[in-house]
């Protein structure tokens, strides 16, 4: 029996893969799968299907992914990801995902950092469509007894003895009952959204608590400094609303006013990629423009040049959302956007098989550090989640392990106020532009916070936050999502994974990236 923590795309993919080979799994999540962050993914999923007459192949996808990630990803993993992508999309078609088609054939759209139209999509609701299909597919295996859902269950603790994971202890949030699940574990618990309360596009259920707790137990983390700020988000009170990259994929343009004239700065700064650079590049360009005294200070997304029929066909959901929340009709007027935290490339340090530094413990999806290097390409997160979950499930061994020392740690939670304090500190230290002074200041504030009365969960999260800051401090270069104005150049000697560990104190080391095997 394998225990899967998280029922988003990575968790469902793992559970279905296991079920297909006859292995039973427990699927644990704090809310039902329909509430997982995966449903929020918008623009699409990448696969070199070569349906657009552009002579695409998976090696192009591989090269774009490696380059987009500033060569920090494991090349063998990325090779597997891109090679398997067409099969994954074809599998999704078999599950009935209503991908955009024209004249009986599938069509794909442009996305940032990719030279070919390679992103398969369903309007701007691709994540939700994939989730609906995978939830139904998981239900089939549940009816065969191969998947057991624990859909309102919080993981109180994973039991780790002698650097081996023995199982999970859950708390039923409805009944309060404590449940012990023996066996290996696949973590698919999402990104580190909870470290940046109300400042991300992600789900508030992704608290980052479990990985924080596990970090303190010795689980190694990779590239924690690599945070993706999406170029186009809008504030809605207590979160950032994502405006999908599909907006620019379909012809949207970034604009500001210079001398009261519209200035389409991306087209001037990046004449080749124009509005579809990788996200790290677009975000920094916007940041600079917003701070440029010659410009108006605001950046707009201008979609007025896109034909209304294209919008209605491909982005009607986005149009409706913006109308609904802001009374903006994207067909009629440019609207203000700002970069906002969207994705965490870093996370649980795993190998090509998704094995973590603890035996019997695997990790996949956004909680894992895999595939995306220093910057993720749009359209690769859904792919990475499905392929990662599948890879973990194919490799994890269904060994019999038993929890012998059964202790339920108090199921502490961080208070909202504590989360707010951590988010404030981290936002200062780990912004779009970073430097030693800012990071050290943030670390100082962590030290002060440490002196307050904290529960165990808060202590763990604080330790984890410090590990994020120290990872950023130790990477004395600029690469992908990590830009330091005191080290603005990319330094080849840092083409390594930063690995954060904990053994009484935080350690940061740099590990070699595997060489690409001859295929």
């Amino acid at each position, binding site marked *: 029996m394998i225990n899967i923590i998280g029922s988003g795309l990575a968790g469902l993919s793992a559970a279905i893969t296991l079920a297909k080979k006859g292995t039973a799994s427990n699927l644990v999540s704090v*809310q*039902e799968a*329909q*509430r*997982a*962050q995966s*449903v*929020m993914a918008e623009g699409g999923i990448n696969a070199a299907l070569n349906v657009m007459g552009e002579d695409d192949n998976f090696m192009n996808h591989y090269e774009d992914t490696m380059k987009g990630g500033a060569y920090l990803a494991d090349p063998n993993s990325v090779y597997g990801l891109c090679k398997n992508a067409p099969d994954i999309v074809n599998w999704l*078609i*078999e*599950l*009935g*995902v*209503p*991908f*955009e*088609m*024209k*004249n*009986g054939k599938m069509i794909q759209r442009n996305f940032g950092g990719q030279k070919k139209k390679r992103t398969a999509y*369903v*309007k701007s*609701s691709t994540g*939700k*469509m994939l989730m*609906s*299909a995978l939830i*139904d*597919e998981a*239900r*089939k295996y*549940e*009816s065969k007894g191969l998947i057991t*859902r624990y*859909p*309102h269950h919080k993981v109180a603790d994973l039991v780790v003895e002698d650097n081996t994971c023995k199982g999970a202890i859950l708390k039923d*949030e*409805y009944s*309060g009952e404590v449940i012990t699940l023996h066996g290996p574990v696949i973590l698919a618990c999402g990104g580190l959204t909870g470290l940046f309360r*109300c400042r991300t596009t992600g*789900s*508030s*259920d992704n608290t980052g608590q479990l990985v924080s707790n596990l970090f303190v137990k010795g689980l190694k983390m990779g590239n924690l400094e690599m945070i993706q700020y999406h170029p186009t988000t809008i504030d*809605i*009170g*207590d*979160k950032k*609303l994502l405006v999908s990259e599909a907006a620019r994929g379909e012809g949207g343009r970034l604009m500001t006013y210079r001398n009261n004239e519209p200035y389409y700065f991306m087209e001037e700064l990046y004449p080749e990629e124009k509005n579809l650079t990788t996200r790290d590049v677009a975000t920094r360009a916007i940041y600079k423009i917003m701070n440029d005294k010659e410009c108006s200070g605001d950046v707009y997304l201008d979609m007025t040049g896109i034909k209304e029929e294209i919008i209605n066909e491909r982005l009607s959901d986005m149009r*409706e*959302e913006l109308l*609904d*929340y802001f009374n903006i009709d994207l067909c009629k007027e440019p609207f203000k956007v700002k970069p906002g935290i969207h994705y965490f490339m870093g996370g649980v340090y795993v190998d090509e098989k998704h094995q973590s530094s603890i035996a019997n413990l695997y990790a996949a999806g956004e909680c894992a550090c895999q595939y995306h290097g220093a910057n993720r390409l749009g359209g690769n997160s859904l792919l990475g989640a499905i392929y990662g979950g599948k890879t973990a499930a194919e490799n994890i061994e269904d060994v019999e392990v038993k929890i012998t020392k059964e202790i339920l740690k108090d199921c502490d939670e961080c208070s*909202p*106020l504590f989360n*707010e304090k951590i988010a404030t500190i981290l936002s200062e230290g780990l912004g779009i532009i970073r430097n030693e002074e800012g990071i050290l200041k943030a670390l100082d504030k962590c030290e002060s916070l440490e002196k307050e009365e904290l529960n165990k969960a808060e202590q763990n999260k604080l330790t984890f936050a410090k590990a994020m800051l120290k990872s950023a401090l130790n990477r004395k270069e600029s690469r992908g999502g990590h830009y330091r104005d005191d080290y603005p150049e990319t330094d080849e000697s840092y083409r390594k994974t930063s690995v954060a560990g904990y053994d009484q104190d935080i350690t940061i080391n740099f590990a070699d990236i595997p060489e690409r095997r001859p295929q």
Partner: protein
Amino acid sequence: MRIEILRRKKGEKDSYLQVFEYEKTTDDETVLSVLNNLNLREELKDINGEKAEKIVFKSSCGQKKCGSCAMLINGRPGLACASRISQYSDTIRLEPLKKFPVIEDLVVDRSIMEENLKQMKVFFEDKAIISEKRNQVSYEASRCLQCGCCLEVCPNFSVDNNFTGMAGAMPMSRIINELDKKQLKEISKAYNKFVYNGCGKSLSCVDICPAKIKIEDMLVNSNAIAVWKRYLKD
């Protein structure tokens, strides 16, 4: 502003009303943001200055994509993340959905929806069939949030009868729409029993659906295939 919340402690049977004073931060603030801000207070006190426990509620996406935060807002079911406080007067009353067992405060147990889908075998035994025409229905049907708002207003749904309501019918519509003929017989039987026969066609669900799913279109399509046996031609 005055925020009234119908609360209940875990494991208890009785609910109680607690009122909070709230200073709105912006005009376009959502109900979800109000709840988050109340819980952010160092010490939460009610309108009488009595110490109050943090408010328990569910949320996830905060932007109408996940259905977590469904609740009664001034008596009407809706998503807290989609409800601007500016549309209400100075008092907002928040209550848990009433059709489902209450767990704690604004949290209800909506497991019945998944149980119904399992019972109706809402999945493909074999490969789905997609086409440009079918995709339009599948897209619409796949948007269902499983929030339960449609069930809350449905005169025919209750947790202890056969009728699944539209929370069951929408995912079912996707399957019916993409099914090959082999599985159709069994699925049609389930559709008739759990959806078609139970629906009184009040269509109160149509206006309440936070995702604005074209429920009638979905029903027309499913009825044609599963009840009237008019198979789709691509």
